[in-house]
């Protein structure tokens, strides 16, 4: 047997052991929190971890969270949904209309239905007609805005005397988890390092919660359980990973995509309702969604197409927006201190991993952040107003390469066609 001469034996491939995803996320949450707490005391800006800020973050984050969940459902089934904004607008209109007639619960349902209608249109275009998903999304954004304007001129104007606004819409009541919420408030008022911060954040989460907010909270684990732990979810996700394979196993890909996109629209619609049915909010108002649908999409990508992740994305956005709206320039300024702190941690971690370049880069960035903090007292108000967007951009720039979208996301699928 001389025909084959063996030259050498190859080395076996090694596969490193990795920390599970949830543990890493948890670790970063803890690190982020500690950095925030330290920052809050070192810079003397207690708002950073105040329950008020957290409540604002929740209120501002919920519509974004819902839009992001909408994005998740569609994209897990392989349909990119950039039309979330349009569906959200439809949701605000529908929610205000039904809410005005029959109360907030009806408003919520109607918002879901109207958003779902937008989803249906998107599904017809992308699934049945194979239209490019982005194109269809752009068109739906135009249509959603146009239809809502048209309808409100037609239907709201006679009641509210204003073509751009609905009449006042009844709101949900809010609830606090007593006595827990009260205790947390007391703890927070103590102003003790760590304890008060935790109390502030927890307190913010359990006080002044409306059913709509609760629903949004619930939808995150519910989406996870349905999409990852149920047969239905497995089928739905398989349509986003390999629809041809799914079809060959008897999964009706069209049907699942339709369902997913309609649910996506409904969630975006509920996101719209979250702008109008919570206490302190106005009814329908032209332009009030103000690109929150797009932000939701960003939060979803930020969260790596996972419910926990997008919760993080929406929370980050809501938090930085709440912070800048409530205590403006000073707290955003303090954030630079926090960023420097975080970057030092990152650098330490990179040194531990012997990744010298990344470590060096992080240290330099930390130095830059710190010097900005040190040498300035306030930042131009025009720029702090958009802190959330900047933070999103920066975090994506740091983390985007770890992201993994569904394999068949955005691809056209036709039954019976070869791959």
């Amino acid at each position, binding site marked *: 047997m001389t025909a084959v001469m063996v030259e050498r034996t190859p080395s076996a491939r090694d596969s490193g052991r990795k920390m599970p995803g949830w543990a890493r996320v948890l670790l970063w949450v803890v690190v982020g929190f500690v950095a925030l707490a330290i920052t809050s005391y070192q810079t003397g800006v207690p708002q950073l971890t105040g329950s008020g800020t957290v409540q604002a973050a929740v209120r501002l984050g919920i519509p974004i969270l819902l839009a992001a969940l909408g994005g998740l459902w569609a994209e897990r089934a392989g349909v990119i949904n950039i039309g979330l904004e349009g569906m959200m607008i439809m949701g605000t209109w529908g929610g205000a209309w039904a809410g005005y007639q029959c109360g907030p619960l009806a408003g919520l349902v109607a918002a879901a239905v109207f958003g779902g209608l937008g989803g249906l249109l998107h599904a017809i275009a992308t699934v049945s007609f194979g239209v490019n998903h982005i194109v269809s999304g752009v*068109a739906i954004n135009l249509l959603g805005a146009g239809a809502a304007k048209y309808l409100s001129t037609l239907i709201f104007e006679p009641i509210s005397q204003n073509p751009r606004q609905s009449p006042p819409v009844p709101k949900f009541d809010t609830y606090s988890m007593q006595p827990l919420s009260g205790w947390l408030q007391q703890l927070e008022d103590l102003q003790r390092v760590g304890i008060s911060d935790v109390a502030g954040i927890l307190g913010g989460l359990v006080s002044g919660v409306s059913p709509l907010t609760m629903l949004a909270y619930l939808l995150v684990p519910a989406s996870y359980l349905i999409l990852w732990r149920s047969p239905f979810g497995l089928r739905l996700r398989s349509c986003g990973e390999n629809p041809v394979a799914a079809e060959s196993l008897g999964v009706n890909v069209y049907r699942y995509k339709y369902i997913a996109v309609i649910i996506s629209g409904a969630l975006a619609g509920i996101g719209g309702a979250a702008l109008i049915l919570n206490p302190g909010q106005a009814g329908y108002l032209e332009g009030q969604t103000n690109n929150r649908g797009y932000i939701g999409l960003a939060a979803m990508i930020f969260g790596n197409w996972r419910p926990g992740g997008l919760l993080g994305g929406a929370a980050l956005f809501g938090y930085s927006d709440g912070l800048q709206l409530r205590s403006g320039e000073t707290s955003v300024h303090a954030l630079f201190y926090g960023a420097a702190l975080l970057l030092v941690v990152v650098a330490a971690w990179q040194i531990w991993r012997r990744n010298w370049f990344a470590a060096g880069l992080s240290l330099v960035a930390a130095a830059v952040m710190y010097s900005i903090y040190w040498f300035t007292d306030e930042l131009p108000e025009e720029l702090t107003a958009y802190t959330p967007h900047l933070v999103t951009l920066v975090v994506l720039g740091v983390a985007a390469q770890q992201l993994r979208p569904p394999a068949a996301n955005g691809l056209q699928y036709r039954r019976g066609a070869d791959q």
Partner: protein
Amino acid sequence: MNTWRARLLPPALAIVFSAVLCSAVLLISGADPIATLLEMVAQVGRGTTAVDIINTAGAYYLVAIAAAIGFQMNLLNIGIEGQCRLAACVAAIVAGAVSLPFGLHAALVVVVGAVTGAAWCGIAALLKVYRGVSEVISTIMLNTLSIGLIAFLVRVFGEMRGNSQGTAIIPDSGLVPGIPLGGAGTVFGLVLLAVLVGVGYALLIDRTRYGFELRASGLSPAAARAGGVNSKRMILTAMLISGAIAGLAGLPEILGRDHTFTVNFPTGYGFAGLAIALLGRNHPLGVAFGALLWSFLDKSSLTLDNIGVPKEIVTILQGTIVLAVVVAYELVRRRELAAEQRRVGKAVDTAEPVAVSGGERA
């Protein structure tokens, strides 16, 4: 897909379909669709509307070409809005601050606009190429950030005239004279820029190596890569060019009419550009047609208030057209592909009547 029928049929179908749909909406809400259409057409002849249509179509054409260049390689530059506004702002600041001979001054402003647009888009391009950030998300964020940056720039470098904030008035040497048509208005001189960009775009896409590489990257990134196209470089350059052209779009009205950039600078050019590029299928002439149509709808809708029709019907019409046109293209594409396969099948069958091909050569 190269037949004229395949090119022209879909948009025609789409426009007809959308018109029918909107007529239905109008009828339901109690308005007369025919009268609405007639009123809109009649509006073109009134005042400066015709000229306004041309002027705005010029800007639309520029943003649409910026979008089309991205589309050619499957890049979605949603940031055109921000690039266009920021570039207009920076260009106006520079234009108001320098003093150069006539002609040179305007040329400098045009260059500054293009460079600013390219640079702003370049951020998204770099993030995409080196960090893998989807340009859709980054440009959405950049759009919003540009608003803040503009507000900052206008406050620091601008001036107040009454209640409006804007950049310093541009001296006469920096202006671009238009073509005055008396009572019908003045066509901006820089509309010519749109024509030039259109011609350049047509040549670039159809006749040059770069255009070929651009299209190849869009049609099949893997094939382009195997064919030696450097995808990173293509993404970078395409985004830069797209941003640069977007950066020009605001200039015709600034140098031709407003002579300053104010914070009331119109919004919505970016999305209009995306929609028009889709409507025109990224084709230089198709986009021109789309820009004119879009502009016509925009300008003549101003009269709808007069006859008691909500002018939002036009937004609905625009959305429907975009959706219908892509659906129509897809349907026609499927039919044409099947027809082509039939043709090829026939041609091959007649050329090769024997069961087995080329067995004897083995």
